[in-house]
């Protein structure tokens, strides 16, 4: 069993899996049950001045018969008295001294920050997370994402916090910005110890078409909420990778958040530089015990490769490049395994209507579209391809026309049926940057023939 323990800017945790600051980390009872289930840490539901929540708070996006591909909420920070939360935090920390307990905070004035930091740290917590990300309700009051979207304010408040805090300070960033590096630099300038991201994405989760009211419906109205769940993972991965590869922000440890549901998701976040990962939606959907798979899966993955967590962390960051650094001479073409093909021909429709018109059916040669690059007819394979399952419904690829876009392989419902096969060539590596540098290509800025 691989050692999964982490030390994130001084916050120690038996594994990298933390509950995110959200409903699953709302009470001492929940957090203790989560620790019993195997979670390594928890970021407590954000403390601040008392708020009143609405009833009807969550919305979900289903996809292809599965529930909650995406999730949105219009809930605010904790609605429990500060003293109760602090008492429970202290109790948890006392009972679970080796687990990470981070207190999420969101207040307004400098005095309030000083006060709440002192009282929070008096519980014995391991660190603080500054909620500069909440994109609904709190931002209307000048907090949450209202801070995260204003680099100067973000720097200033972070500096206040660092003035008072004795424990490590994580700044939680909002993805509702044009360039995540801007708030990243601002947090760095405020002297924070680490970053947490992403918070939720501003969203309207749907519309009740019968009533003509967006969702989730609160009486006759609704408001924009924060979007999260599996659907946002790609957005989170990109922002984390941006910060992880930037020479300035790369020294800040990252707590990765956004659609993590299993060990594989978590491993992807860690490969792109996350030290810990935080989970909310998957716990709200499936309960605390999903962490069992996360612990075992990540451990097995590392053991099979003989890697430590430290060696694995950030291992995919160097391969995250600019487009202009990609090899234009690398080429793949689609290949259909006729024995796995079930004959649904989804690849045919996808390629003909949505890609490059190079997948056909039938025994005869087929005319290429007028815009084709290759000359003549698309050559049907001889003898005709007969699949084990689909008979003569197996489509075929016009390889000279295939640009290697991957679409057919992505829409094929049968795993491993369509693969993208590398076509070796002797042309060597050639990037767009190489072409610009050697005068063979141009920087955009006009229409060229």
């Amino acid at each position, binding site marked *: 069993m691989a050692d999964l323990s982490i030390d994130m800017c001084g916050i120690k945790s038996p594994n990298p899996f933390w509950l995110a600051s959200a409903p699953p980390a709302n009470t001492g009872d929940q957090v203790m049950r989560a620790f019993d289930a195997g979670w390594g840490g928890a970021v407590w539901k954000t403390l601040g001045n008392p708020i009143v929540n609405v009833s009807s708070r969550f919305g979900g996006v289903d996809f292809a018969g599965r529930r909650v591909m995406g999730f949105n909420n219009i809930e605010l920070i904790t609605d429990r008295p500060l003293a109760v939360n602090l008492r429970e935090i202290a109790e948890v920390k006392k009972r679970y001294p080796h687990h990470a307990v981070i207190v999420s905070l969101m207040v307004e004035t400098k005095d309030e920050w000083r006060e709440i930091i002192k009282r929070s740290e008096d519980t014995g917590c391991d660190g603080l997370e500054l909620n500069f990300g909440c994109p609904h309700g709190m931002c209307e009051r000048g907090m949450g994402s209202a801070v995260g979207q204003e680099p100067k304010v973000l720097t200033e408040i972070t500096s206040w916090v660092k003035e008072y805090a004795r424990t490590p300070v994580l700044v939680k960033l909002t993805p509702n910005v044009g360039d995540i590096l801007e708030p990243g630099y601002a947090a760095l300038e405020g002297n924070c110890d680490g970053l947490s991201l992403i918070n939720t994405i501003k969203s309207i989760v749907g519309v009740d078409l019968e009533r003509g009211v967006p969702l989730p419906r609160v009486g006759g109205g609704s408001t924009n909420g924060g979007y999260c769940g599996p659907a946002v993972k790609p957005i989170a991965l990109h922002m984390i990778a941006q910060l992880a590869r930037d020479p300035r922000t790369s020294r800040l440890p990252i707590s990765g958040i956004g659609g993590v549901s299993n060990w594989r998701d978590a491993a992807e976040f860690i490969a792109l530089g996350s030290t810990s990962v935080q989970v909310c939606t998957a716990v709200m959907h499936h309960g605390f015990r999903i962490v069992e798979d996360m612990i075992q899966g990540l451990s097995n993955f590392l053991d099979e490769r003989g890697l430590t967590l430290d060696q694995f962390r950030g291992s995919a960051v160097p391969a995250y490049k600019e487009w202009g650094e990609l090899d234009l001479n690398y080429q793949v073409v689609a290949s259909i395994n006729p024995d796995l093909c079930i004959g649904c021909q989804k690849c045919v429709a996808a390629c003909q209507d949505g890609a490059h018109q190079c997948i056909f059916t039938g025994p005869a040669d087929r005319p290429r579209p007028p815009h084709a690059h290759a000359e003549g007819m698309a050559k049907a394979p001889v003898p005709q391809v007969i699949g084990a399952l689909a008979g003569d419904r197996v489509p075929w690829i016009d390889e000279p026309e295939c640009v290697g876009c991957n679409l057919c392989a992505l829409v094929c*419902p*049968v795993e491993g049926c369509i693969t993208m096969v590398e076509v070796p060539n002797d042309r060597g590596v050639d990037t767009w940057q190489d072409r610009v540098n050697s005068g063979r290509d141009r920087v955009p800025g006009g229409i060229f023939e």
Partner: protein
Amino acid sequence: MSMIEAPPERLESRLAEAKPLYGPGEARAEAERCLFCADAPCVEACPTEIDVPGFIRQIASGDTLGAARTIFQQNILGYSCARVCPVEVLCVGSCVYNPWHKPPIQIGRLQRFATESSLDAEAAGGARVMRPRAPSGTRRSVALLGAGPASLACAAYLALEGHRAVIFEKRALPGGLNTTGVAPYKIHTEDSLREVEYVRSLGVEVRCGVEVGVDVTPESLLKDYDAVFLGLGLGVDSKLAIEGEDGPGVWGATALIEEIKNTPGFKLPDARRALIVGGGNTAIDVARELAQLGVPEVAMVYRRGAADMSGYAHEMDLARRDGVTLQTGCTPTAVVRGGDGRVEGLRVQRREGGVEVLPADLIVLAIGQQKLRALAAAFEGVSLDARGCVSVEADSRRTGNPRVYAGGDCINGGKEVVNAVADGREAARAMLRAWPAGA
């Protein structure tokens, strides 16, 4: 227009449906499994070529009414076909999930959900699923013989185009085999009649208890109508022509099923051992119905081997689950009766040699039905083929008389409801083509 009501106290009411109506959530979940194949094999497998992936996608997106319209466009009897079609050998059997060893999409149940939900909504005052064109000055009129699926479909498509369609049915109840013959676990009489009511709501006139050739002559129909459609179906059950088969205790299969389905207060003969002679789907149906209705021993007797049976393998599997046994290689030679005339058994010649009397107190003959040769031939220009089926042109379903069309069992010798619907629809389309546009 008064409802044609199902008779009370029918024996079939004791048999529950095997595939009840999906709820909206169930339907959506099943619909979302559909891959939405390109050039989908399920469409090709459907004799009426319903756009199956199209209507399933509409169910998945919540447009149930649109799904029903997609179905009705190609198959106006989609409501009954959803239940009575042998989907296992048609659309569902061709689903690409089968070779992949995954459960195929339950297309029949989805079709039932779309059509039944939409007809329910229409009956409750919601949107009309299909809107007939208003009759124009060039309205044609068509007489249709027999109120089975072929005539109902033909008449419905004519009515949707604003033409007059009048169906003549000799029985008291319309609907053809859906009413009189299809197994109750697939469809009950009241549901078949409900579909007839729907066809009537499109403007089709149905005259029950009127027998062409008795109450009205073929000549008068040809005189009074622009075209005639023969949806005659088949005649009475065929007999074996063996000793002892006439008399109590020996039934024709379709006659017995009709009693079970339609006759008020009908009770099964008090039988302990029933033998069903035949290897087709009607034989399997009557065997299953008797077993489900409580006859302790039900056996099918077939003269050739199991592989030669025309009944579907999946239906035979279900029959075995109902407790039906199968005796193959047995050719009946006589019905054995006791001194009081009661049936005691069936004497059979074994294929491997030897004669045996299989004990039985009820014998049902399911070896086919007679052709209604005389009625069809009474229309001038209509000819029959060697089997006694009405000869038609392949596409138009037109007979030798350019104003007489035919479809359903009377042209194919006995196929599925969906084949009859395809015939009726194609005949209607051919008539529409034959009539000069706007004239």
